């Protein structure tokens, strides 16, 4: 497998009036060509901030530690995205090799410019084709994502489209430059299940067709089960468990992952009680020492959890969990 992107020891803090907020804490993962990685976690766990780091797109008050690396591999060689400075250098990570789609499609379309002009502009920035060819490709792409009458839609504004159609148009725009990595941040959260199912099918087809990598961010484990090859679970800025999707969903090891699964209403057992993860997620200003989950963990072992940061333990070659229960020497 060819690695598209290697994220190594990514740590990201935000300078705020109340002090430094740690939003991402020592996160590492790799995405290969043709692979879909799901990123799950509660709201505020750091999913969007992690995704934006891959494009060096976080707010100005973001501070990365010197150890943080985002290594993007392209045909032209490998670059550390976090070292790129000028708009010209950053082109490769923003719409070139990497494209992003957002939860709220209105955010990625300028309200006063037609969908078509925006798509054409994107293409002109990222390639040396002429305008006529860019228009042709844009219409082809709109057609490809299942938008009927694409030539007409090309001349419409985002607000004139329905929610599902807008989401498709955004996917079309993100894919028109043929990125090798697509970041999809909650692309279906605001959609009805029926339209969500259509968008999920579309994204699966596109992975197969373009053989790209995808990061699929969502808080819906059902959507992960339907789309991802592997999954990383985030809590308070840390990846606490990662592995193949079947392994993590069927044999979750981390008490937090187990808690998320138990909280889900399941259709095959309507009598099963819904069991929330006890307690509330701590404020990022008050990150617990030791294991970040210890304030809510039902399986807490004792002082070791409150004081010592758990390191990744390998459940098997591809499945790892950061929890003292699985530390070397501990009984599994």
């Amino acid at each position, binding site marked *: 497998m060819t690695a598209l992107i290697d994220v190594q020891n990514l740590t990201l803090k935000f300078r705020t009036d109340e002090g430094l907020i740690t939003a991402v804490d020592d996160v590492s993962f790799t995405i290969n060509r043709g692979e879909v990685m799901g990123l799950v976690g*509660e*709201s505020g766990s750091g999913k969007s901030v992690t995704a934006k780091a891959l494009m060096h797109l976080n707010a100005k008050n973001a501070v990365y530690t010197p150890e943080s690396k985002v290594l993007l591999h392209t045909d032209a060689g490998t670059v550390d995205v976090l070292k790129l400075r000028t708009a010209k250098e950053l082109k490769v990570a923003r719409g070139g090799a990497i494209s992003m789609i957002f939860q709220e499609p209105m955010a990625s379309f300028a309200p006063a410019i037609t969908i078509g002009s925006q798509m054409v502009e994107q293409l002109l920035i990222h390639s040396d084709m002429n305008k006529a060819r860019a228009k042709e490709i844009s219409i082809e792409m709109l057609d490809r994502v299942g938008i009927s009458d694409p030539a007409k839609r090309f001349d419409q504004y985002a607000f004139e489209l*329905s*929610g*599902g*159609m807008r989401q498709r148009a955004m996917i079309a725009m993100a894919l028109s430059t043929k990125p090798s990595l697509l970041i999809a941040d*909650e692309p279906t*959260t*605001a959609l*009805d*299940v*029926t*339209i*969500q*199912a*259509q968008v*999920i*099918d579309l994204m*699966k087809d596109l992975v197969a067709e373009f053989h790209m990598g995808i990061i699929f961010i969502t*808080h*819906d*484990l*059902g*959507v992960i*089960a*339907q789309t991802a090859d592997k999954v990383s679970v985030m809590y308070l800025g840390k990846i606490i468990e990662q592995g193949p*999707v*079947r392994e993590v*969903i069927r044999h979750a090891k981390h008490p937090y992952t187990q*808690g*998320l699964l138990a*909280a*889900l*209403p*399941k*259709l095959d057992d*309507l009598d*099963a*009680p*819904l*069991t*929330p*993860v006890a307690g*509330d*997620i701590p404020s990022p200003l008050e990150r617990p020492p030791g294991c970040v989950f210890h304030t809510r963990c039902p399986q807490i072992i004792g002082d070791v959890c409150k004081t010592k940061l758990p390191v990744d333990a390998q459940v098997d070659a591809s499945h790892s969990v950061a929890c003292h229960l699985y530390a070397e020497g501990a009984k599994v």
Partner: protein
Amino acid sequence: MSEKPIISARGLSVGFKIGSGLFNKTILKAVDNVSLDIKRGSFFGLVGESGSGKTTLGRAFLKAVPITGGHAAYNDDEVSYDLGTLTGPELKDFRTRAQLIFQDPYAALSPRMTVRDIIAEPLEVMGLTKTREETDARVREIAAKCRLNLEHLRRFPHAFSGGQRQRISIARALVSRPNFIVADESVAALDVSIQADVLNLLKEIQREMGLTFLFISHDLSVVAHTCDHLAVMYLGRLVETAPTRTLFKAPRHPYTKALFSAIPSLDPDDRKGGQRLIGEIPSPTNQPPGCKFHTRCPVVIDRCRIEEPKMEDPGDGHAVSCHRWKELLAMPAG
């Protein structure tokens, strides 16, 4: 649950005038000819795609939008009100009996009020308590039921997590001791854990206080777990109603079946795909003739394009509005 309905609607319609100018006004029928009973003590779920009219129907039951056709009535042990004609002191009284829970607490809570004041506000506006002591006692009682402590009451809402803000909204809706609650979860983006916590709390309160809930949701697995009865809406119409288990076990309407098959399975090996519902819900200002669902129905026949089906209840409490539902019973599920 009692057999007596707290809410009954007969041929209920809600239309909005849209467009400006004298001659290009159109009527948008957001709710069209809905007949429905919500029994006392029920946890009644309303599902359907965005724009199907769920919020509007819920608001009609709270007399928060004008009823433009048909009837809706509210009945409890003490009063009977016709919601179409209700005015004056009776309307004021009705407002204490029926309440809305905003499920978008970020938008609903004023940042400059303490939690105590937020919860107390309805009591003061409605003049339900006479002294500050009485108000405080009511606020404390309901806050405790919603698992908020005295310390919480002194703080401002921005200091709370999503789950806690939800509990504040619930306490505010319950403080007037209503009998009927509409919970409109228009923002379905709650984290699963918070969602489970809030659902458990609502069920607990419902049992304890004997309330009736109309629960509006996009999330079918959530309604499956919380509601005893379900109604499915499409383009302003009711297309199917039944007890929850019956509906999930044996849906009769092609739309309900399509909704169920779109729920993403938690089993990574069950990636069905294929038989998806195509297209989107039509605009309510440009409704198709005949059966409203015919433009997307996988089993449409010519008759559907001309003749609108009527709601039929074959006597088992499982009503459906489709020309072909009986025929489809004999066909394999799909």
